Each structure stands twice: as structure tokens, then as C-alpha cells.
């Protein structure tokens, strides 16, 4: 028997990350809208670098930091190692990201940009240190916590490589120019950080929200091995300059994604809750969207001649950042944020007074429109990339901007919710 221990992180630690993430998503879609004309060009452009880092760090990583500070105590069964360090990670990353993004946007990779990159690196280090401290005793949900921590190590390496590349623009510290190492930096982040994290956390949360009886720890360990194995193989191939190792590495990652989709499908089939709400539907879209970048990579590998156009890689990035990562963040926001606020506002009143349900904090109609705008925006944008039609690119970016505005409104509405408990 145990007493109902309080194992949640204080909302004041977690909530700033949600607000920051929503703001970055809005700015990133605004930049996408104002620079939609740049999309058919080469991926190494100031505006695209700014958008990518805003999406990867400001949106994806900051949201994940906030959620992990909330989730880690659930996985380990004890309080977060340090709330103060969590706040330090917010301020370091939160100050560093705008400096870094502005530097990319102006393509001025001098002092302020380097300071921004260093602050982000320190912020990530603070987060990782906190996760390590929280996991110092054997966690209860060991598998999922190992996914999160391993993803964190890859993120730390991604940031270290990124900072070195930034330095290399100004002071040649590497053997080749920074562009040569860009794919390593990108794939460390995409596969090591985002893929490992989303599969690990998704495998915990998706069955929980579906009330599914399905469990398969062996399958999840296999996914863990395949992602890490694929990434290590890819790195070894790059370092040893053996291009033949790219395909086996891609095959391992593709196998991991296929297994994760099987996992989600089986969890969905074994669910007890028939009706699936919009946030979970959006989250379930994410594994499906994972397949598209992998198929694109496989297609590019076999298509030797003519070589793929530069815009191909922009489409690849759009699918990853605005598709796969954004879909799960949009969904999971509304499965976590209303509960954090509900606990804060009504937790002490539970069973004493009538309180609204956590879901009542979400404006259902706006959420539905946000989903329509997001899905149609993504579809139109990708159609614009395939057909090279600037009107479609602009319309798609505009719809994504609308979805980000609606998302921001919903988040702000939940964050500022005041008690409506009946006496």
C-alpha cells in the first residue's frame, strides 16, 4: 500500500514551455508564409534555416522539454530532480533560440548568433542533467525513461555538432566546410532526438489515452535497437566515408518506423474507448506521416539519375517538421495542458464542489477548425511543392499560419482559465 503521493511538477515550471512553443510555432508559420517563394529553392537559405531552427528548437524541443518535466515524474515515480534547473533550462534556451534564429535569418553568423547557439547548448545540457538526476534511481517505467534519456543524449550531440558547425563558419575548426556536415547534424536531431523521443513517449501515451489493453515491451525494445543501430551505422558510414552504409542504416530506421506503426495500429484495435477524440486522432496521424520522409529518402537513394532537385530536400524537411513532429505536438498539447491547468485550478476542489471536466477547458469548435486548417494547409503546401506552384505554396503556408493562430488562441485560453466551480 502506498499513500497517494504528489508526484507532479509545479505548473509554473512546465507552463512557460507551452507558451513559448506556441509562440515559436506562430512565428515559424508567419515566416513560412512570408518566404513561401523560397520553398522551391535550395534548402541552405537564410529564411529556411531560420524556419527549421524555430520549428526544431522553439517549437519541437521547447514543447518536449515542458512535457518531459511533467512526464518524467510519471515515468520514474518520484519528483523531478530539480525544478530550479528546469527553469534555468527554460531561460537559457528561451534566450538563445531568438538570437540563433535571428542570426540565421540575417545570415550573420557572428558573435550574437554564436552566443545564441552556446545558450541553447547550455539549456539542453541543463535539461539532460535534470533528466539524468531524475533517473538516478531505477525508474518504474524503465523502458520509456530510457527512450527519453537516450533521445536526450542524441539531442545534446546534435547541439554540440550544431555549435561546432556555427563556429566553423567563422573560424575553420573542421576539415571541411560546415555544409559537408549538415546532414549529420540534421539526422542526429531528426532520428536520434525526435524519432526516439516520439516513439518512446508515444508508445506510453497513445495506448493510455485510447484505454488500450495492448502492450508489447519486446517490440518497443526492438524499435529502440533499430533506431539507435540505424543512426550509429549512418554515423559510422559518414565518418569512414563508406556510402554503402547509408542504405542499411535507412533500412533499419524504416523497419523501426514500420514496427512503431504496427504498435500504434494494434493499440488502436485493442482500445476499449470506441470514440477517439481530435487530439488523439491528430497524434495517431503522426506515425503515418513518419513514413513519407522515409519513402522519399528510399526513392532518392535508388534514383541516381537525374539527381533529385534541391526542393526535394525542402519537401523532406517540411514533412518532418510541419507534418510528423507538428501533428503529435498539436495532439498531445490538448491531452496534457488542460489536465495541468485543471489540476492547478480545481485539484483541491475535487469531490467537494462541482467542477468542469478538463476537456471543457478546450474550445471544441476552435479545435476542430484548427485541425481542418492544419491538415488542409499541410496537404496544399505539399501539393505546391510537387507541382511547383507558388499560389499553392502561399495558400498552404497561409492555412498553416491560420492553424498556428487558432492553436495559440486555444493554448492562451487554457493557460488563462479561471475557476468556474459551482459552490
Amino acid at each position, binding site marked *: *500500500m*502506498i*499513500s*497517494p*503521493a*504528489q*508526484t*507532479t511538477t509545479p505548473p509554473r515550471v512546465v507552463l512557460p514551455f507551452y507558451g513559448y512553443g506556441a509562440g515559436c510555432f506562430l512565428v515559424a508559420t508567419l515566416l513560412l508564409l512570408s518566404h513561401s517563394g523560397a520553398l522551391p529553392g535550395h534548402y541552405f537559405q537564410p529564411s529556411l534555416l531560420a524556419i527549421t531552427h524555430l520549428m526544431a528548437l522553439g517549437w519541437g524541443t521547447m514543447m518536449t522539454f515542458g512535457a518531459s518535466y*511533467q512526464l518524467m*515524474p*510519471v515515468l520514474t*515515480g518520484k519528483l523531478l530532480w530539480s525544478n530550479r534547473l528546469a527553469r534555468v533550462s527554460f531561460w537559457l534556451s528561451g534566450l538563445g533560440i531568438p538570437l540563433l534564429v535571428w542570426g540565421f535569418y540575417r545570415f550573420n553568423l557572428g558573435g550574437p548568433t554564436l552566443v545564441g547557439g552556446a545558450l541553447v547548448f547550455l539549456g539542453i545540457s541543463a535539461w539532460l542533467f535534470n533528466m539524468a538526476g531524475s533517473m538516478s534511481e531505477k525508474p*518504474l517505467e524503465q523502458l520509456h525513461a530510457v527512450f527519453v534519456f537516450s533521445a536526450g543524449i542524441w539531442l545534446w550531440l546534435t547541439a554540440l555538432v550544431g555549435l561546432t558547425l556555427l563556429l566553423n563558419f567563422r573560424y575553420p575548426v573542421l576539415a571541411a566546410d560546415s555544409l559537408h556536415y549538415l546532414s549529420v547534424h540534421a539526422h542526429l536531431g531528426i532520428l536520434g532526438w525526435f524519432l526516439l523521443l516520439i516513439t518512446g513517449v508515444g508508445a506510453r501515451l497513445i495506448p*493510455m*489515452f485510447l*484505454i488500450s*489493453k495492448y502492450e508489447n515491451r519486446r517490440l518497443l525494445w526492438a524499435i529502440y535497437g533499430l533506431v539507435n543501430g540505424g543512426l550509429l551505422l549512418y554515423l559510422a558510414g559518414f565518418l569512414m566515408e563508406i556510402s554503402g552504409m547509408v542504405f542499411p542504416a535507412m533500412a533499419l530506421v524504416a523497419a523501426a518506423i514500420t514496427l512503431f506503426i504496427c504498435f500504434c495500429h494494434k493499440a488502436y484495435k485493442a482500445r*476499449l*474507448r*470506441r*470514440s477517439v477524440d481530435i487530439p488523439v486522432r491528430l497524434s495517431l496521424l503522426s506515425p503515418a506521416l513518419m513514413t513519407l520522409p522515409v519513402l522519399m529518402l528510399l526513392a532518392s537513394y535508388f534514383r541516381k539519375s537525374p539527381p533529385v532537385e534541391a526542393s526535394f530536400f525542402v519537401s523532406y524537411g517540411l514533412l518532418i517538421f510541419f507534418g510528423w513532429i507538428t501533428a503529435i505536438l498539436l495532439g498531445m498539447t490538448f491531452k496534457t495542458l488542460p*489536465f*495541468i491547468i*485543471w*489540476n492547478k485550478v*480545481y*485539484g*483541491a476542489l*475535487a*469531490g*467537494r464542489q462541482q467542477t468542469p*471536466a*478538463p*476537456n471543457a477547458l478546450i474550445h471544441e469548435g476552435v479545435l476542430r477548425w484548427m485541425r481542418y486548417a492544419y491538415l488542409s494547409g499541410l496537404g496544399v503546401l505539399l501539393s505546391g511543392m510537387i507541382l511547383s506552384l507558388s499560389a499553392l505554396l502561399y495558400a498552404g503556408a497561409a492555412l498553416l499560419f491560420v492553424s498556428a493562430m487558432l492553436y495559440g488562441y486555444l493554448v492562451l485560453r487554457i493557460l488563462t482559465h479561471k475557476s468556474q466551480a459551482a459552490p
Partner: protein
Amino acid sequence: MMIETNNPLRSTAALAALSTVTDPEIGLNIVDLGLVYRLDFDAATNTVRCDMSLTTQFCPMGSAITEAARNALAGAFPESDIDLRLTFNPPWSAERISPEGREFLNR
């Protein structure tokens, strides 16, 4: 759904009170969800003891649910002390959901 008790008569009133407590995420009351494992009434110490669980250990809503259950029992038995204990032995499983609960989830 199997709830052990040493006093079936008084447990009816306790279950009626606990039925007013819902899992905020699922929207189903904790009795039909099968979270209540045992209800014991000790006349000597004037205590109502309730053993209950959560759908997942260290659920972030856990303290809100257990507090609500404690408050509901305190409302139904104002003269008694409430001894509410959280257990994960055995862990909650979907098999504990009542037929009414399954019907609710099937909607």
C-alpha cells in the same frame, strides 16, 4: 468488477458516494472503472477503509482522484474517519471495468 467488503449493506452507500467521482480524463466514474478494490467498516474505531487503484501508477491526476474519493466518502459518512489507501497490487486492468462502464466507453 470485484469489490471486497466486510459490510455489504454499508458498502452500498459508500459505492453510491464513490460513483459521483469520475476519472477526469476518461469521464467514467471510479466504481464502474473498477478502481475501487475493497471497502471495510470498522465499528470499533469508527473507520471506513477504502482500498483503490488508478488506471496507471503515478497518474498525474491521481491525487485529484483520490482526494475526490476521500471527500465523497467523508460526505457519505460524516461521523467516521476515512482511511483511503492506494494500491497497485494487483495493478488495475481493463478487465475490472463493469458492463455499464464498457457500454459507456463503447459510445
